[in-house]
């Protein structure tokens, strides 16, 4: 079964089969990164554009390496050098890029729905690399890949996601993916960080970290975005760490073989203690490695079924 879509805009619209296809395909691509010659000719002659309207090192680099290992030509456009600063609209920027016949546009944007706007007008495939507080599908896919590698399967696992759920696209994409694959997902954070009616997405909400950690197989810690911090969400970083920071002591409540995940970059001593981040429980660097494999898989799969999709 191929991936029957032009774009990857989120996890929410994906079927379980599509998710499994991406994860299985990533397994094959992971091997490429272990070779001496870390390159296959799969996407030779394809043009990929990394269109980043928000600063990002990790995701942009990961897509860039993924593209290069597949022999695609990939170029980076960041907001500071694009015409956005000159007041050009997103649609005009997209039309201009489109006129140069790219095959895939990878977009990161601070506004939810920006990739959808692009996907509607572009012939190229669009990959959402994070849009506002909406979705970050490749992050959730690489998280799921990492969980599967460590735990064998996702079905039946108890997963806790802790932190600023309200502003987190990583949380939303992971909630969609993990619940689709049959994990039991709970979230925890200050009440000011829990979006309304989130229970309808099939998660359990906790306001105490200890209860959220109890018996968990997987704990995902979200980054506290200091830069977008409006003081009214919580009084101080110190109080946040005291109430929700992940420490080795607290981690004892989780299962003995718990894994700790974080989408990065880390704020040590804010949402996670250094001891936990550097502990054997941490799979944070595996997440980074797997990110490349998962993104190679997504690039490959989107390129395959594309023409059918566009004609219909």
């Amino acid at each position, binding site marked *: 079964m191929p991936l029957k879509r032009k774009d990857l805009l989120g996890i929410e619209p994906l079927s379980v089969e599509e998710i499994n296809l991406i994860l299985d395909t990533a397994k094959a691509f992971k091997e490429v990164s272990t070779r001496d010659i870390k390159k296959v000719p799969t996407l030779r002659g394809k043009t990929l554009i990394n269109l980043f309207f928000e600063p990002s090192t990790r995701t942009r680099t990961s897509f860039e390496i993924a593209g290069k290992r597949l022999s695609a030509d990939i170029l980076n456009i960041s907001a500071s050098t694009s015409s956005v600063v000159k007041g050009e609209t997103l649609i005009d920027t997209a039309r201009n890029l489109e006129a140069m016949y790219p095959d895939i546009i990878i977009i990161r944007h601070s506004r*939810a*729905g920006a990739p959808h706007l692009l996907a509607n007008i572009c012939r190229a495939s669009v990959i959402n690399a994070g849009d506002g507080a*909406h979705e970050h599908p490749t992050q959730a896919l690489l998280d799921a890949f990492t969980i599967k590698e460590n735990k064998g399967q996702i079905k039946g696992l108890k997963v806790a996601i802790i932190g600023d759920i309200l502003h987190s696209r990583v949380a939303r994409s992971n909630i969609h993916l993990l619940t689709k694959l049959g994990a039991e997902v709970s979230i925890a954070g200050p009440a000011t960080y829990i979006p309304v009616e989130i229970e309808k997405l099939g998660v359990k909400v906790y306001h105490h970290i200890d209860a959220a950690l109890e018996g968990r197989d997987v704990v995902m810690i979200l980054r506290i975005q200091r830069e977008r911090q409006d003081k009214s969400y919580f009084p101080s970083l110190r109080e946040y760490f005291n109430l929700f920071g992940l420490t080795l002591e607290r981690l004892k409540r989780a299962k003995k073989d718990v894994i700790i995940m974080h989408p990065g970059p880390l704020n040590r001593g804010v949402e996670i203690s250094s001891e936990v981040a550097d502990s054997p429980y941490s799979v944070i660097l595996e997440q980074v490695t797997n990110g490349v494999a998962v993104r190679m898989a997504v690039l490959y799969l989107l390129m395959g079924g594309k023409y059918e999709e566009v004609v219909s």
Partner: protein
Amino acid sequence: MKKLLVKGGRVIDPANNLDEHLDLLIAGGKIAQVGKQLEDKEAQIIDVQRLIVAPGFIDMHCHLREPGREDEETIESGCRAAAAGGFTSVACMPNTDPPNDSQSVTEFILKQAAEKGIVNVFPIGAATKGLLGEELAEIGELKETGIVAVSDDGHPIYNSNLMRKALEYAGMFDLPVIDHCEDKELSAHGVMNEGYYSTLLGLPGIPAAAEEIMVARNIILTALIKGHLHIAHLSTKGSVELLRWAKAQGLRVTAEVTPHHFTLTDKEVCSYDTNTKMNPPLRSAEDVKAILQGIKDGTIDAIATDHAPHRKDEKDVEYADAPFGIVGLETAVPLALDRLVNKRVISPSRMIAMFTVNPATILKLERGTLSPGAAADVTILNLSEVVKIDVTSFQSKSRNSPFHGWELIGRAVLTIVGGKVVWPAKSLT
């Protein structure tokens, strides 16, 4: 002016409790006679068999954008859109540039309307100078010039003391104060209804409470002083309940609802189509249900469009960055006929009242009826005609509607203003 004889239709005039097959004779810009089998040799005959003859529809809340944003709409184009949509009168909000807070702006609007407008235009004046919510506008002078209500439109009067004074002061002139009820601190940077869909879409939400807090405050103020409060575009279940309570207390509070708030829910935002972005935002299915109940039981007085034209390029941006608002003059009547009458929420007569006598009463207009001697403003409706909404055929200068491509049953087919057929432009004979 030629006499008109509107023959063979079902005349519904809620002001006179009339619903019968009658003929209508119009002469000298006035309703001359309503009766059976009328004859007049001089009159041009308009055959309206199987159609409904109603008093001219009044849109008590629209934005004509002139002066200031003639690129989005002008008084001329807005009036044409109104006529095409079946409206004979519109009341335009003061959020122009400059805002309508002085006699000269009111005079300008009335002059433009008289010269270029094909429907009646009734300006709404600013409640506070510059719509800034700091000091009262010269409401007395504005009233003299011709305003029919005061409002700060999209800028709710935040200061409760000033709102009290606006109600008291406007009350002296028997002018309603129309308030866009919203606690802007609570809605903050919100761009859609706060609820399941805002959580799903990752868009900042505007809670229902942001509206309800101000509705409650305003109602409580009207209990304190004499004055007429009119709640603009009410959108939540809580607001309907508060309004019902206020009416039960005998307070002088009226309210309007827009067609989009009784038709669409916040689920529509899932497309990230910026034509689903307006303020107040599309609400939950539960809110829509409560609004339909409020329409059914008469709690809600009027239907108004909140017609808010925006240029395509202003709307063709990221959802959060798009301006609030949609056009409504050319979709309101089909939506009301389809959703309220054909789906049997209310009778044709009740629906017509919400567009005619009710807004006329709120704004104290001598319109909204077919009584002999009244201005000959008439809207002819076809209850069963299927209409496909096509924004490219709109008379409005703007196209920002979420209803493009919708098929609805029922529309206004003929608009008569002051005894003259204004729409269709080439009159039927």
